[in-house]
């Protein structure tokens, strides 16, 4: 395990504190219908239009479990190298809230569908393995809207009953950077598997963050506080930082930490205690008598194992071994399934090294600038592949390619077409080049003298002039070769 070179420590007086972080991530399962009812799960529908009688908990309504959601949870478990429990139980978690129509949430308490596993984080300092405690399935709640009506709260039950996977990490995270890497990796694995789309803006991925502190070197854990429902990595980091400092301040003042549930206020940038939970929830878990224990056969699980696609860690290894990419390059290219798909499509017909450079360089810069996902790239993998091939076969120089790339950004045209339209083919005819270079030499006799008498740096001047005279079309390699010959 790599040692963190830059540790995340909170310093106060002469003390250094470590921060212990655990995450409970709630990931919405990608499925057509909900976990225990057959209403749709699509985001953004008109309020209460995706609600069935079961979702709204009408008298006499009963849950019927969605087989696909079970498969999605198992697949995720496999992606987390976790133990799949052949027998698991659905329990009722009882509490009252306006967006919880049943007055209980169907969840899993002591017998979850997935047990212990692990995730490998790709950090600049090396790899770190973070333990997974468990994964279980549960129902999502509806939405309470507090700011549309001054007197009342409005309730939309569209989300009520959507399947969630709750993934609990072990308290192995120690820094904001690790939290970032963990969430990104978890999200990536699920996107590779197609079990969750990881869209944090739409709420497909949210986390409860557990934070405690301890003096560096101390054994055992301090009292932790839970910060509920944080829906972006940035807020997670801000919340953790605030909370860790808050706890350290209390300890330094001689106080003790109360175990409590807190909320992160994004406006004030601080965590505060949730007043309404003052009588700590007693969820009164018991097995849901409307359901039976879930018993999975080996075949059911193995059939899923057989069909798991290549996951990021595997793919990274393969990229390094087969394509000789560096760890850094490979990590970037596998970090998201869309990126790896794009890359793999490009390298089907194009040089790997060039593809790597162009994707991680020019393309990423473009996407960043326009704030686009790779799936929204204005330049398709097909056309980028063509562009790279044109460089490789000498039709255009790398420099010209950059201009073509710019033009492709506007219209994603076939680069071949652009080159022909704009006459950008590079000049690779040695005879033509010789003529051109002869002219440059003739026009700059004084510089030639200086070069031959030792000013080697002037070589670049001649190259520059050749490029200028040819309007940038001269094949740079050939120019180099010919110049070298002629200036000997």
């Amino acid at each position, binding site marked *: 395990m790599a040692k963190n070179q830059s540790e995340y420590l909170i310093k106060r007086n002469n003390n250094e504190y470590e921060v212990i972080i655990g995450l409970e991530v709630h990931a919405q399962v990608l499925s057509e219908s909900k976990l225990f009812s057959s209403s749709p799960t699509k985001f953004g529908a008109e309020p209460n239009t995706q609600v069935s009688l079961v979702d709204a908990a009408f*008298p006499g309504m009963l849950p019927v479990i969605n087989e696909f959601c079970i498969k999605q949870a198992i697949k995720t478990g496999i992606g987390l190298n976790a133990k799949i429990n052949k027998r698991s139980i659905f329990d009722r978690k009882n509490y009252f809230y*306006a967006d919880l129509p049943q007055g209980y949430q169907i969840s899993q308490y002591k017998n979850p569908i997935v047990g212990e596993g692990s995730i490998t984080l790709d950090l600049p300092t090396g790899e770190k393995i973070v333990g997974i405690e468990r994964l279980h399935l549960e129902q999502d709640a509806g939405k309470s809207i507090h700011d549309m009506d001054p007197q009342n709260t409005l309730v939309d039950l569209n989300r009520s009953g959507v399947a969630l996977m709750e993934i609990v990490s072990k308290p192995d995270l120690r820094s904001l950077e690790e939290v970032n890497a963990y969430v990104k990796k978890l999200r990536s694995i699920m996107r590779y598997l197609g079990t969750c789309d990881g869209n944090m803006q739409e709420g497909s991925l949210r986390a409860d963050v557990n934070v405690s502190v301890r003096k560096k070197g101390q054994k055992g854990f301090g009292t932790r506080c839970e910060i509920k429902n944080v829906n972006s990595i940035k807020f997670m980091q801000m919340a953790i930082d605030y909370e860790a400092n808050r706890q350290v301040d209390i300890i330094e003042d001689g106080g003790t930490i109360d175990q409590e549930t807190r909320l992160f206020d994004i406006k004030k940038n601080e965590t505060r205690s949730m007043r309404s939970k003052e009588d700590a929830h*007693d969820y009164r878990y*018991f097995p849901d*008598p409307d359901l039976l224990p879930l018993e999975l056969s080996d075949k059911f699980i193995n059939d899923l194992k057989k069909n798991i696609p290549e996951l990021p860690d595997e793919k990274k290894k393969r990229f390094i071994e087969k394509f000789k990419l560096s760890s850094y390059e490979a990590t970037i290219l596998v970090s998201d399934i869309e990126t790896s798909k794009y890359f793999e499509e490009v390298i089907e017909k194009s040089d790997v090294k060039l593809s790597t450079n162009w994707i991680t360089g020019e393309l990423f810069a473009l996407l960043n600038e326009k704030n686009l996902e790779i799936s929204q790239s204005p330049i398709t993998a097909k056309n980028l592949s063509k562009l790279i091939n044109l460089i490789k076969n000498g039709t255009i120089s790398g420099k010209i390619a950059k201009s073509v790339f710019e033009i492709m950004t506007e219209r994603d045209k076939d680069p071949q077409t652009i080159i022909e339209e704009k006459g950008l083919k590079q000049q690779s005819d040695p005879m033509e080049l010789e003529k051109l270079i002869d002219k440059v030499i003739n026009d700059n006799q004084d510089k030639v003298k200086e070069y031959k008498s030792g000013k080697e740096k002037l070589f670049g001047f001649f190259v520059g002039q050749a490029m200028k005279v040819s309007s940038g079309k001269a094949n740079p390699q050939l120019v180099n070769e010919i110049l070298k010959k002629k200036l000997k």
Partner: protein
Amino acid sequence: MSDIIELTLVELANKIKKKEISSKEVTTAYVDRSEKSKKLNTYITEDFENALKKADNFDKNPNYEKKLSGIPMAVKDLFCTKNLRTTAGSKILGNFIPTYESTVTENLWNAGAILLGKLNCDEFAMGSSNETSFFGNVQNPVGEDLVPGGSSGGSASALAAKLTPITIGTDTGGSIRQPASFTGTVGLKPTYGSCSRYGIVAFASSLDQAGPMTRDVKDCSLLFEVMSSYDYKDSTSVDFKRRNYLNDLNNSIKGKKIGIPKEYRVDDMPKEIEGLWQKGIDIIKESGAEIIDISLPNTNYALPTYYIVAPAEASSNLARYDGVKYGFRSKGENLIEMYEKTRSEGFGNEVKRRIMIGTYVLSSGYYDAYYLKAQKVRKLIKNDFDEVYKKVDAILTPSTPSSAFKIGEKTNDPVSMYLNDIFTVPINLAGLPAISIPAGLDSKGYPLGLQIIGKAFDEQNILNIAYSMEEQIDFKNEIKDWWM
């Protein structure tokens, strides 16, 4: 006309099919009689106008191929009936109109039956005397100011008073069998999982089961055929081969082995109950079946187990009655106040008591000692039955420890009320089928029932035994229409 109401279901169905009487005539007879019987307070919601229209429509366009073609009937107000108010005997659902139908009642209407209205019951099926209903007590037609039993009190009373030819109820701890015993009628609680729970207002999910309530065993068999189906919308519904229970009814019980459990011979057992039980034993012997003494050692723990498991599940099932989505809502300054007032005003005392028990036995620190313990004892009780069923085919016991008592007699002592279910509760815990048939009258002239308990999914067997015994017993209900 008055003869129509004397006909059993099987007789009625035949006459309608043979066009000897019309559905309109039958329905009119029952509507008339029901209108004259309001004193019994069996109906919460009447749907007489619609019933007469439907009967008329049936006669104009009859389909005689169905099992309940043109038969009018009222049902317990625990079954959600589309577009007709369904209250579960509670204020909190006092104005609730479902937009959907329960599977069991759907089966009835698909079989050609016609809905007369919704029958009174203990609130949320919690009670043994129909004295906890928000809509008032029900009178037992057997005698004035007598309870009809509960929770399906309205059903049993309407059936015995002939305000409906047949009816359906639900049984969680005895709520079909005990009122059947108190009113001199037949009531079957089928094996858990044979009738769908979809659309039935839930009380205790692992114990609730819908069942037929009829005047005789043949009717019971036919009605059960119609009610029972596999329903994918209920995850606890069992897909098994359902028989033609009526056609296959056989009154020969020669060679059958009937168990008599010694633990059911409770202390202070009234002599009359003992006598009745003996009468049943003698009848069985005379029919050529064998009587075998058996032991169900954990019987005495059934009631305490039930009063942990049922309230626990109920406390959770009734959490949805919060005034948010439907039903009664009381004004509150904020959400919590709204909840607390709604539920305090919307629920009656017995329901509140059971919710509190249930909440407590599931609460932190008590789950192991109560709920978990009860689930273990439940396993032991089930094992007891599994064991004896290696030796016997069915079990005979009394249905209730007494006949109908007076309204108000037991309302002050919850525990004495709970003891009514002493013979019926173990069967719900074990998920087994059991039928109560009227077996005689006590010294006051009130009916008493005998209970035949069967193996899981072996309803045919207990129907056969009941059919055989019924013939020998030849029970006659001496109900005079004192309330009209």
